[in-house]
Every structure is written in C-alpha cells, then in structure tokens.
C-alpha cells in the first residue's frame, strides 16, 4: 500500500512515517503543507493520502480543500483526513462529497498503528472509515424522538459499525455472527429508522450518518 503523509508538524509527521513503515506501509512521500499536494499525488500515484485537516497557511480547512483537489485530479485515490476535534458536521460534510475511499479519523488514532493502518487499507480499497468516537457522539445525541431507543443492543452495534463505514464482511467478523443474521439486523434497523434498505456500502454509510446528524 503506497501512502503519502501530509502533516505540518515535523515531529508528528516523522512519528507517523516511522509507525507506518514499521507496519509495512510504503510511505512514498511526505509533505508539510497542502499547497503542492495534488501535483505530488499526480506524480506519485499513491493508494491513500493521510492528511491533516488543519494545514498552513490559515490552519482552518486546507486539508479538506486539498482532499477535494486530489479527488478531482486523481479519482480513485483514497483520502484519510485527520482532525484534532470531534466534529460531526465536518465528518458528515466530508463524507457527503463521496464516501467511497474517504475517511475521517480523530488525530489521536495515529498513536494506534493497527487502527490507523486498518483505516488506511479500507480507504485504499474504496471503503469508508469514520472514527468510532464520531459515531459514538452521533449515537449519543439527545434527540426529540426516541427512534434509537427502539433498537436492540445488537442492532445498535450494527448501526454503529455501518456508520463507521465497515463492510458486511467486517461486521460479521467483528460481531461473530452469520451474514444472514446480519442482514436480518440491518433490515430491522433500516425499518425502524425508516431508511431505504438495500443500499450499497458507501451509500449506506452516508445515509446512516445523515440520519444520525439530522
């Protein structure tokens, strides 16, 4: 898996690169700012770009904008964004563009080699990766109607994993249930939330996130 790391803090960038290389990831380039990133991506053709949302010069949303430019220039390149804060609006906003090959993780995840590499792999494969913390926050949102309260604990787990962008296969593995059982759960969840069933994985994550945010 070929990866470009874009992070403005040199210390953190070095740490991440070392961690990824230790995990067997091929870091083809690293950069401290988002400016020349689309060109770099076009030249190196990585599978994924690991990208901090806050980059110079304004330290606001350079990363998000660079992600858009990368996707426009090299469609199919995965982008995994790192955010300092849990911001559901930003996460959903990023996903809403095109959840295929997009990920949004809390920055703290970089300390967890396994989780980080797993997310990179999923994004490289065209899946989505939404930070569990963000999903937890969305699920914990107090809402006027108590739709989520009508879900069984198992259905709750299934919903959370779908929101994280995990595939059916990953969910069955994680929950140790059969594919058939999972499909029953998913139908039930979608029925209770009054969402369109039979969505492809990437459309599913968006539908679920949008529902949870709304």
């Amino acid at each position: 898996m070929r990866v470009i790391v874009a992070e403005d803090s040199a210390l953190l960038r070095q740490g991440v690169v070392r961690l990824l290389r230790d995990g067997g990831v091929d870091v083809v380039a690293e950069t401290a700012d988002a400016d020349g990133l689309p060109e770099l991506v076009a030249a190196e053709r990585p599978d994924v770009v690991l990208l901090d949302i806050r980059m110079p010069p304004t330290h606001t949303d350079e990363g998000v904008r660079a992600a858009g430019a990368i996707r426009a220039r090299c469609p199919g390149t995965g982008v995994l964004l790192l955010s300092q804060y849990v911001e559901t609006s930003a996460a959903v906003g990023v996903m809403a563009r095109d959840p295929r090959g997009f990920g949004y993780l809390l920055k703290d995840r970089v300390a967890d080699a396994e989780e980080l590499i797993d997310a990179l792999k999923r994004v490289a494969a065209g899946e989505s990766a939404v930070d569990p913390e963000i999903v937890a926050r969305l699920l914990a949102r107090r809402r006027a109607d108590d739709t989520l309260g009508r879900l069984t604990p198992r259905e709750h787990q299934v919903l959370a994993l779908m929101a994280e962008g995990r595939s059916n296969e990953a969910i069955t593995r994680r929950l140790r249930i059969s594919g058939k059982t999972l499909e029953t759960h998913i139908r039930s969840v979608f029925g209770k939330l009054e969402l369109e069933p039979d969505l492809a994985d990437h459309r599913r994550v968006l539908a679920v996130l949008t529902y949870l945010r709304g």
Partner: protein
Amino acid sequence: MGGGPTSGGRARRAPTPRLLIGLGTAALLAGACGSWGYARSGAGPGDLVRDLSVGWTYAAAGLVARYRRPANRTGDLLLAEGISWFLGNLQGFPVPWLFAVGAWGEALNMAVLAHLLLVFPDGRAGTAGERRLMVAGYALVAAGGFARVLLYDPAADRATSYLACPECGPNPLLLRRDPALFDALDLAYRWAGVVLTALVLVTMVRRWRRASPARRRVLLPAWVAVGIALAFVGWEVLYLLAPESPGAAGDLLTAASDLSQLAVPAAFLTGLLRMRLRRASVGDLLVAAGSEPTPHRLQEVLRQVLGDPSLRLGLPAGDGSVTDPEGRPLTGGARAVTRVDAGPGTGAVLEHDSAVGEDPALLAAAGAAVRFWLSDHRLRAELAGQARRTVPRRLLQAAYEERRRLERDLHDGAQTRLLYTLMTLRRLGTRLPGADDPELRRTVAEAEDSLRHALEELRDLARGIHPAVLTRAGLEPALASLAERSPVPVQVDAEPGRHPQLIETTAYFVVSEALANAVRHAAARRVAVRVRHGGRLLVVEVEDDGVGGAPAPPGPGEPAEPGDSGAAPGTGLRGLADRVAAVGGTLRVDSPPGAGTRIRAELPCE
C-alpha cells in the same frame, strides 16, 4: 405627511375673485356714499378728492394685501381702515340715525389705525399689553364716542367736528343740550385719544428696539406711518390749544396730513409684501439656537420667532410619550399641534396658539428648522454612540484574536507533543523486551491512559478557548458541536450563512454561556437555540425550561463582575451583556422565577 409640518390651527386660503370684487365694491360704495354726505355738509371738490383718495387707497392696499398675503390679518385691517375712513361722513346725511352713527364712529378709523400699527406686520399682537392697548382704542370709541353723541348737538357745537355742518342732524340720540358738559366730555374724549396714541407710540418704540435688523427693515415703512400719526397728534393738540383759530394753518395741516396719509397704506402694503422677516428670523432661529442647543433653548427661540410665548416643544421621551423640555407630557388639548417628522422615532411636536397656524409658510419654515435640529441631534447621538462602542469593540476583537492564537499554540505545541509522546509510548509498549511482564504492561497502559486523558482535557480546554470549527465552518456547525457535548438535549435551529468573525464569535459565546447557565444553575431539561438573520441583524435566542430567576444583566457601561464562569447565576450573563454591547448589540434576559429563561441577543452585522 412627507416630513412637512401639519397644523391643527386654521390656515386661510387665498380669497376668491368674487370675494375680492365684493369687498372692493363695498369700499367703492362706502366712499361714494361718504362723499355724498361730505359734499352735502359743504366740502369742496378738493376736500372730496383728498378724502376719497385716502380712504380708497387704504381699501385698495387692503385688497392687494388680502390677495397676496391671505394668511396675514393686516390686509383685513387696511380694508377696515379704508371703509371706516368714510364713517364720519355719514353725519352729512339727512337721515338722523345715520347722522348719529357717523358722529359715534367718527374716530373709529383712529382705533383701527392704532390696531394696525400694533399688529403690523405679523397681523397679531405679540404681547398681552399690546392686545390690551388695542382693545382700549376700540372701547374708547365705543363708549366715549357714544357718550359724546348723547350730548352732541350739531347746531350748537359747531367746531367739534371736521364737518362744519350746522344743518346736519338732527341728532336723534341727543339727551340734553348742555354745551358746558359737552365741551368737558369732548375734551376728555380727545385727551384719552391722545394718551392712547402716546401709549401706542411707546409700544412701537419698544417693538422697534426689540426687533432684529431683518425685522426693522420691514417695519420701516410702517414707522413712516408713525410719523403721519404724529402729524395727526400735532393737529389734534393744535386744535385743542387753539380751537378758535382754524384758518390757513388748520387747512394746511389738514391738507398735509391727508396727503401724507396717502403714503400710509402704501407703506403698510410695501412692508407687508416685502415681509421676509419671518423666514429670515427662522434662519436666525438656527443661529440663535447655537451649534448645540438644548431643547430649552430651542423652545425659547421658537417662542420668539413664532411670537407665541406659550409655545411648547415636545420631544419623544424614552417610553414613547412626548414631553416638553421640563419633562411634562404634551396633551395638546384645545391648542393647535404641529408635528415635525424627522425620521423614525425622532418626530417633534409643537404645541402652540392656533393663531400661529395662520401663517402656514412660517410654520413650515420653523418646522424645517426643528427638523434640521433633530437630524443634527440624532447624528451627533449616533456618532457619540459609535465612539462609545469603538473602543470596547476593538478590545473584544483583540481578546478574540488572542483566544484564537492561544488555541493554535495549544494545537501546534502541547497537543502535538503529547500525541507524539503517546505514539512513542505505544511503540515502547510493543517493543519492550519485557513486554510479557504484566507489571510492566500495566504501568505502560496506565501511562497511556493518563496521556489520553491529558490530551482530551487539553482538547476541551482549547475548544473552550476558541472553537476552531467556528472559524472554519461558521456558527451553525459550531453550535451543533456545542449542543452535542451538552449534557441536556439541545435543539439547534440555525440558518446557515457566514457573518463577520466578531459577530459569529460573540453569538457563539452567548449560546455557550446561556447553555452553561441553563445546565449549571437552571436545572433545565431541554434547551432550544435559534439563530436568525434578518436585514442587518443577527438574532440569537436561547430558551430553557429551567427554574428561571436569573438576574437581568446590567446595561452597557455598568461594571460587570470579573470572570464569566462565576458560581452565582447571572455573573456569566453580565459578562455577556458587556460583550454584546461592545459590538453594538442588545441583550435581553427574561427569567421569571419558575418559568424558564429566555435570552435574546441582537447583533448588528455590518
């Protein structure tokens, strides 16, 4: 009313041609009849010409004035003078009753003339003293003239009238033939006339001295008339001193005064038509009021210019009522009211004597001056308000900048370093040769846990200092994020859209502080946040269902207690009130005990 003054007083319109023709015909007939009587009493053609020219000139001047200055009473008076001029000539008629009326009203034109002098050029008396003097003239003619008629025998008292007319009469009102008594009464009557004339002169001198140069210019022709009036007095005095010596001197005086009298109506008319003094003095109003007049001063000047000492200037008070400079409410009542509009919420009201309304143009000019003053006043207030706001606004802006910088520093510095340490620690944990040692693993896990906590706390701290999402994505995502972290359900209903950073940040902190207040002090179970922008205002409302009873924040400028996270309810709200005031907004807190709290901030987005 398009900003123009409206008056509750009467406003006279220009007379119709029919009315003018009617009045002119009346004057012509009065002259013709008078001349017939005059001729019958023995007047020569020269006398008749003089007599007719003076009377008709007054009447003609009156008609012109009536036409050109319909709102001014002077025209009426000139006409009355012209018609009453011929009244004495009725003594030449062979009808006894007409003789009595003529003898009675012989001096009526003198009273009218005095009236004219007293009210010229405004058409109304300025002071109570002037009004009394005017009334006294008419009263003297009415009472004194009547008493004199009761004793007047034209056959016996030959030299008492300008008409030498022993055949006139007979006097049907004659009560008693008593020449001695008649002489005494006649003398007293004439002296009373002299005294009144002198008083009129004194008044005129006083008015002249009071008058501004602009007014003197207009008064001047009338003061020529005073000279004529003096000639009359001289004639009267001469007549009193030497009643037995009419002869050439008497004739000459009569001729001179009659001829010069021709100039009097012309002088009045000229002055009247040139009367720009009021408009000029409205200009003076602005000068006299000074560059920064108080309402008191303005009222005083208006009183002088409009000639109404009872005038009151009403200005809008804070509570929507209209009060005079002493703070007494204006009731209007029976008096006329003129409104002056000068933009929303800044109208003034003039409460004045209805007579003032007889010159609508003058009122309009005065209204324009008041409007000018009001606009000027409002402009000054706005400028002062801006100056008051600028400094706190800049301070607030600087404080927000500082917060943003601090958050960035935390993000780039401590947070990054802690995160790196966490990464290193995890590598250490997996690569340690003694990784199987449970003791060691627990220690590493504890350190890792502690580090994660530190990162989390630091992140919360940084977000509290300045929410990065606010700068990046705006108010709505920032408020949503705030709501998600709240321990009570918060419904956010915010219109999307970006606003100036200072306003967004202030709005964010209003909601943040209100939420903290609702959770910490009000024991609210749910909170609703609404953000709307209409026109140039951003309106932020936070409503909870808690216990209420939060103290209202003090007005801007009042000291707030330091610290916006104080333990007592409302201390944070006080800080908010200052922040909101600093950006030129308003903060309202409705918090009745037991009925929830409603906080509403209106922030100008300019």
